[in-house]
């Protein structure tokens, strides 16, 4: 029963939401029903997560769909962030379309695309099929690309073009790797389903020739890496993040980018040590490269959202670096993904508030004098994002260092983080504090928009003070 609801009813409900929002008039009723739909999904995700936390695994359609700890974590992450972004979008998008001279009625397509993105991410996270996973990772790109270009301005179109081109081309590499492994396992076992499901790939992958499997996995890493935004294939990320509407930036930076790493986790948590070990140098290299390129690129930025986007690259690098140190590293990588998603979404929403209020994203000063709450939220979320206690990011930043356990690499890792930290903090200090230069608050910030980032921030603070459930879940994702 639970399996059916999880795999059929909830996606259907989301599909209903998509259709409903597209074909009905954009008004209060639609908003309410959408909120209700999202709420149902959130509640169900929480329930499913609870079930998984207590030791159950939800399986449906002959293991085509399977909710284990990793899925549950991602599920709850996705649903909470979408809920917040939906609530945030109501007020934000109305102003946004006004700014770009669009009709308010077109917003129905926005909500419909948002919901279908939710659907794709939902299905992706419960899928146990390697190909279906790929299909839905690709689908997240396709559903979000029009959202990135929602403003229909030259910049946003440019960003979305880069986004779709790079992701679609890059992801083919992952498809190639997946098919290669499938083909080998099919040849060995003769069963068309053995090479399909992660649970059985894990059993048979050792029968695949070592060189081939590492090659195929390398292709997978590159492919999903494009999605995850790790150096050297991170190009689309700063553009798309900075040009998208803020709730979409939040979704992109947290769960959509995260799904690249989700797929990598899926693949790498089923591997046995000899294959995994050959990937340590790869993860180490891309991790360090991403950390440094991300951090250094923040220096001298003026656009807040662009700086945050580069910070995402840094954090993706942290995750990649952590992957180089299994098994502890994987657990902390998952935890870092979770924390980073929550906090990056918070930060983008908080920055979105500033954008909403002042109508621009650069050369702001003295925000806190205009609105203490907005200023506090922005600065607190940035500081939390950099791994200060008592927020949950602190644990994963430390945990990654713990997993590394080597002086030189730890030092490099921390130096990289440090650079990004200083650069980003500097930007936000200058923005939030200081003498007020811009006296023209264009808009008031609606209460819901103020509340959503604060709510997420509180959530991470609570997580930070009571980390053990998250830690347990992350630890359970790692094969022993």
């Amino acid at each position, binding site marked *: 029963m639970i399996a059916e609801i999880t795999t059929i009813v909830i996606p259907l409900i989301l599909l209903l939401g998509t259709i409903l929002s597209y074909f009905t008039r954009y008004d209060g009723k639609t908003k309410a029903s959408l909120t209700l739909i999202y709420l149902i999904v959130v509640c169900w995700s929480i329930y499913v997560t609870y079930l998984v936390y207590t030791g159950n695994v939800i399986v449906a359609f002959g293991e085509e769909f399977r909710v284990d700890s990793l899925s549950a974590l991602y599920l709850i992450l996705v649903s909470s962030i979408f809920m917040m972004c939906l609530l945030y979008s109501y007020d934000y998008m109305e102003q946004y379309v006004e700014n770009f001279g669009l009709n308010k009625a077109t917003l129905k397509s926005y909500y419909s695309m948002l919901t279908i993105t939710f659907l794709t991410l939902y299905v992706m996270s419960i899928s146990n099929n390697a190909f279906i996973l790929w299909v839905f990772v690709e689908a997240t790109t396709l559903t979000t690309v029009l959202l990135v270009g929602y403003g229909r301005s030259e910049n946003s179109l440019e960003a979305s*073009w*880069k986004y779709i*081109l*790079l992701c679609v*081309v890059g992801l083919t*590499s992952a498809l190639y790797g997946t098919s290669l492994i499938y083909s080998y396992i099919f040849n060995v076992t003769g069963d068309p389903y053995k090479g399909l499901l992660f649970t059985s790939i894990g059993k048979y992958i050792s029968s695949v020739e070592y*060189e081939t499997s590492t*090659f195929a996995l*390398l*292709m997978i890493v*590159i492919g999903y890496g*494009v999605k995850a935004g790790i150096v*050297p*294939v991170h*190009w*689309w990320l*700063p553009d798309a993040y900075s040009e998208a509407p803020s709730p979409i930036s939040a979704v992109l930076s947290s769960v959509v980018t995260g799904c690249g790493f989700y797929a990598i986790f899926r693949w790498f948590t089923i591997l046995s040590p000899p294959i995994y070990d050959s990937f340590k140098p790869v993860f180490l290299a891309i991790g360090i490269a991403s950390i*440094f*390129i991300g951090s*250094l*690129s*923040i*220096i*001298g*930025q003026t656009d807040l959202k662009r700086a945050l986007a*580069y910070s995402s690259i840094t954090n993706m690098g942290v995750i990649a670096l952590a992957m180089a140190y299994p098994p502890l590293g994987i657990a902390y990588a998952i935890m870092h993904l979770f924390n980073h998603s929550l906090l990056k979404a918070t930060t983008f929403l908080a920055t979105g508030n500033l954008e909403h209020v002042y109508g621009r994203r650069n050369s702001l000063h*003295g925000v*806190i*004098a205009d609105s*203490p709450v907005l200023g506090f939220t922005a600065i607190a979320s940035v500081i939390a994002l950099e*791994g*200060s*206690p*008592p927020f949950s990011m*602190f644990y994963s930043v*430390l945990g990654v*260092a*713990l*997993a*590394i*356990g*080597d*002086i030189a690499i*730890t*030092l490099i890792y*921390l*130096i990289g*983080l*440090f*650079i990004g*930290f*200083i650069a980003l*903090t500097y930007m936000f*200090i*200058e923005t939030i*504090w*200081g*003498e007020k230069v811009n006296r023209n608050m264009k808009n008031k910030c609606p209460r819901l928009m103020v509340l959503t980032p604060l709510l997420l921030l509180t959530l991470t603070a609570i997580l930070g003070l009571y*980390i*053990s459930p998250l830690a347990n879940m992350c630890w359970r994702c790692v094969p022993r």
Partner: protein
Amino acid sequence: MLEIIFALFTLAALLGAFSPSKRWGHRISCMLSLFASLLLLDVSIQALEGSPITLKLLQGIIVLPLEMDMLSAFFSMVFGIVFTIVSLYSLKYIEEGYTDRGSGLRIHALCLPIFMASMVAVILVRSGFWLIFAWELMSLSSFILVVYEHKRQDVRNAGLIYFAMSHAAAALLIVVVLTLASHTSPLSFLYSSLSSAYKSLDPHVAMCLAILFTIAMGIKSGVVPLHFWLPRAHPAAPSNISALLSGIMVKTSIFLLLYFTTKIFYPAIEIGALILVLGILSILIGCLYAVPQNDCKVLLAYSTIGHIGYIWLALGAGLMIYAYSGQFALYASLLISAGLFHLMNHAFFKSLLFMVTGNVILKTETRDMDILGGLGKAMPFTSFIAMIGILSLIGLPIFNGFASKWMIYVTGISSPAMDHLTMLIHLGVALALFGGTLTAIYSIKFYSEIFTGQSRVKVAKGDVSPIITVPEAVLAIACIVFGIFPGAALSVIFKPVSTLIPEISVYTLAEGVKFYLSLLVIPSTMPLTSVCFTLLAVFIPIAFGILYALAHPLKTRVEAPWLGGYKFDIHEIKFPASSLYAGFEKLVSPLYRVKFPTVKVRYPEPNADKVLVSPWVKLGAFLGEVKRIQVGRVQVYVGVLFILLIIVLVARVLG
């Protein structure tokens, strides 16, 4: 008890931040902090009397063990005293001085208790994980407090540099703790496990870790050449926060240094020598740079660097001697005691002086000694307290600064023969003595430029509110009491030291101190050759009393000062602080690398900026150009991806 203290601090923060009236919230926050500090003091005194407290909160890997052993208890005692005073002081100070700020009071009410609690936590936790937690929290909360007046660009810059430096220290601390933790099995962050992990490490790695740790602590202590944040952050902060930063926060790192080098690492001569050399450098640079400053808080900040140098000198020498040979443990423990004693005294008089500066700022709203002056008449009580403060700072006999400095000199000079190492210690002592002279010079400048002479700012008569001055008076009394009865303090300090250096018992220390430092303790029998410090303390006041009575004039007449017959407006001929020691400054200007006489407001230490800050900023800006690989053409991006794929495929085919 400990959890109650932390709970009180937390409650103070929450009530302060979220109470409906921000003024009352602030008051409640300060009062609760006061109670918590008093409780801390009480607990620490109990612990010093022999009932150490251990406590374990939470479970699993992140178990939170709190322990108040002798060393922590000693630090807690110092912290408790200063916290009590500062909480009381903040109550009125922030309200009076910083009323125009919107959410400032709330931020202050939120962060002050957190700052205090995190500093206490740093010295009480016994788990590396929670150490980092508390450390980061300390950096964060203090950063927010430092940029309290964030509208000013210099304050923000100072705050950022401070935050960056404390984060750098945290990063190094993380490296050390987590590298150690990753060598424990099963995984554990407890200090005991870290200690055994350290002992199992390769000696080179171990040495590397110890050096990294020392550097981390050096950053937080502000020893030269890692000090450049300190003369910015201290002046930028409100005075009560400066008092906490200078009086307490820099001491947390000294606690960790002492604790880690003795209990977790094994003693190493190199580390001791490193600490010693950093200490000597700090004394020299700190004192030299304090002399030309005309901003009184910058002056005090440099003075802090100098005094931290004294403490590091003593601890470094002690650790070095201890590592050299266990048979010199007595010397080592005496040096460490001297260092701890100076630490305590410095906490008292430096926070006192910063609070006094706060009084001055409240009245005049300036820190510029060029235009200050003559406040002795307007604020008699403040000036009296300031006098006690600077006499302690200089270390004149019968004030506490003397007792501890003298103990450092004596134990340093009488350290046993250890090849070249002894010479290093002796050199350190000689330079420390010279530093003492410089201390006198800048202290006199501080006092005389603020409290004597004439002022260019108009000051209303009447001292600041007694809620502000009475706490200061308490500290001033403490300065004198510990100056006259250093034995009382030492008997407390010996307990932690004897737990650090197990060869030496409290009794041996007391005997040693009687032998080497007959001046400081009250011996049970008083042979002629061993005159106690109290006698000294009695001699000077009596002599003074007699002489004062002698000097008391038969008849007094009050006249205008004689200015060579000219009629000046007295306010126009104030001697500016920035040229008070112009000749000397010119003489040593190669050391400063600045032109003298120079501009009105002197930035702290252009040298350090040139050498220590700007290269990094330039390097950062240069490396930041890396972002130009983001060329903006999608063709290039796809091309990179293309080449990457071809490389991987071809590499696969070729094996």
